[in-house]
């Protein structure tokens, strides 16, 4: 193909609008390279390859895959809700505590002899209620999200401790079998070696939720409004978007996803403790930020949060595989958060 001469390029700029609009503003390749989630995916793959090379017998096994995906599923589920909050320019620091509250509520109800679905619904409602309190104060009373959810972090944790009478709840009533089967169960999918690949229910819930949320964010007006609010809240309001109602909804969503992660985890572990989800706000926010969400709002993706959560737990697994002291774990999580933000800053400087 011949390079365009200057005459060609000038003619180009005067073509009809309808011709130009057929062109993509950037190629898919450019868009991919500019996407943070792409680089996190590359990191995840490299880390997997390195660990698999170092520990071929223990890392690259179906059993280890099952464990890693189950372990990051709870963080991943919560990161789905957090992504929506962060896209609107908010933050929810209370998700870890809300997780504990929902777990204790569900467990206490099981303990009192109710059926598993009553516990399930009650747990989800507890999470939604905590989110609704956060959302109402932020959207309608106009309090800063950071402060409101910091308060809820303390309140929900305390409520969980009081409600659990500060003990670990493990004596579940008649619905215990079903309850534990839902959280702790697994599904088997056919695998390329002709056998089956077991996947934890937690991970399956995460994947289903991620697919649904991706569709919602990309293809619905509601998803578009989240980005509009995060980009320019004032403009969103002027165009008639129900900004306050949507803000309330995203905090309810964040609380509900925390509760969902909690109930599934209780089923998997077979017990609920009020210490559940401690520090999880750090991991959840880290997962979304590492995946490319911007804490200033207007930017973020479900896939990014998913792969970010995967990276965080892969770091833990790899450290163990390489024989590094596990106490270094949070050090590396923190390092990756800062690296992610640094990378984001460098790229936005390049563009602007």
């Amino acid at each position, binding site marked *: 193909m011949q390079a365009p001469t200057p005459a060609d390029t000038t003619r180009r700029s005067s073509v009809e609008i309808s011709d130009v609009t057929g062109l993509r503003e950037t190629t898919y390749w450019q868009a991919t390279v500019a996407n943070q989630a792409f680089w996190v995916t590359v990191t995840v793959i490299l880390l997997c390859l390195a660990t698999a090379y170092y520990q071929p017998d223990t890392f690259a096994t179906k059993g280890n895959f099952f464990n890693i995906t189950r372990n990051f599923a709870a963080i991943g589920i919560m990161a789905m809700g957090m992504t929506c909050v962060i896209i609107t320019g908010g933050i929810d620091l209370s998700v870890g505590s809300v997780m504990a509250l929902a777990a204790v509520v569900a467990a206490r109800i099981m303990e009192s002899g109710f059926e598993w679905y009553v516990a399930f619904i009650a747990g989800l409602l507890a999470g939604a209620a905590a989110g609704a309190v956060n959302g109402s104060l932020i959207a309608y009373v106009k309090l800063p999200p950071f402060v409101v959810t910091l308060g809820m972090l303390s309140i929900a944790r305390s409520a969980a401790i009081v409600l659990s009478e500060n003990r670990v709840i493990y004596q579940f009533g008649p619905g215990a079998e079903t309850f534990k089967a839902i959280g702790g169960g697994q599904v088997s999918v056919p695998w390329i070696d002709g056998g089956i690949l077991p996947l934890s229910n937690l991970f399956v819930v995460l994947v289903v939720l991620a697919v649904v949320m991706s569709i919602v964010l990309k293809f619905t*007006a509601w998803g578009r409004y989240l980005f509009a609010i995060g980009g320019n809240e004032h403009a969103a309001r002027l165009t008639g978007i129900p900004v306050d109602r949507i803000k309330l909804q995203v905090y309810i969503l964040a609380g509900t996803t925390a509760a969902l992660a909690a109930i599934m985890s209780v089923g998997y572990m077979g017990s609920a403790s009020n210490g559940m989800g401690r520090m999880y706000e750090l991991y959840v926010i880290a997962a979304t930020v590492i995946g490319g969400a911007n804490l200033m709002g207007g930017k973020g993706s479900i896939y990014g949060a998913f792969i970010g959560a995967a990276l965080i737990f892969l770091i833990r697994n790899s450290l163990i595989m390489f024989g590094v002291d596990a106490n270094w774990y949070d050090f590396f999580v923190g390092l990756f958060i800062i690296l992610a933000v640094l990378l984001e800053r460098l790229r936005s400087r390049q563009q602007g």
Partner: protein
Amino acid sequence: MAVLELAGIAKHFGAIEALRGVDLALEPGEVLGLMGDNGAGKSTLVKIIAGNFPPSEGAIRVDGAEHHFHKPIDARRQGIEIVYQDLALCDNLTAADNVFLGREIRHSVGPFKFLNFRAMIARAAELFGELKSETRPRDLVKQMSGGQRQAVAIARTRLTESKIVLMDEPTAAISVRQVHEVLELIRRLKDTGIAVILISHRMPDVFAVCDRVAVLRRGTKVADKRVADSSPEEITGLITGAIEYA
């Protein structure tokens, strides 16, 4: 017949009288320049027409029928659109997204409603074409020039059969070449029979594009005359108060 008629509009904020007995009429396809110093009441008047708040006294008539606007959506339903001074655009979204923000085209799949990107992009391209703007629907607003951003904000007003477009300081913070672009956009609106109220501080722009100019001073309309019968000097005098009334 006048498409928009204001009769005896007054607005008090507590003891402060922002507007006093303002009458104004606008014909279809007419461009009116609304001028005045800071605090003269321009913004208040525009906000009343756009439905941000109701007037304390007076009537608003659109096509002869009286209306009471309480929310911007009320005014929009009567075909009154506003281009805000800050344009009210979301930088992180595309041009087409911004044009349709809050008024998305959707198609139903079972009980769910999904965005119809194809239709929105096609319609946005059509609107930019009508405005003779080189704005591309898929481009992010962040990457656009001031003129292109104006085109996006103006295209938004063309989504429905609008009759009146209010433009608040559209040329205040953009380059000379872009000012030219924006004035062209205003002429396109005029050509399609839309009445435009241009709020501006820039005398050359008003004289370049307006048919008529109205001057507000301390909440009162002190002049309302054809641009051809006036001069920048006279208007400056009216704005500052050096000329009492014209």
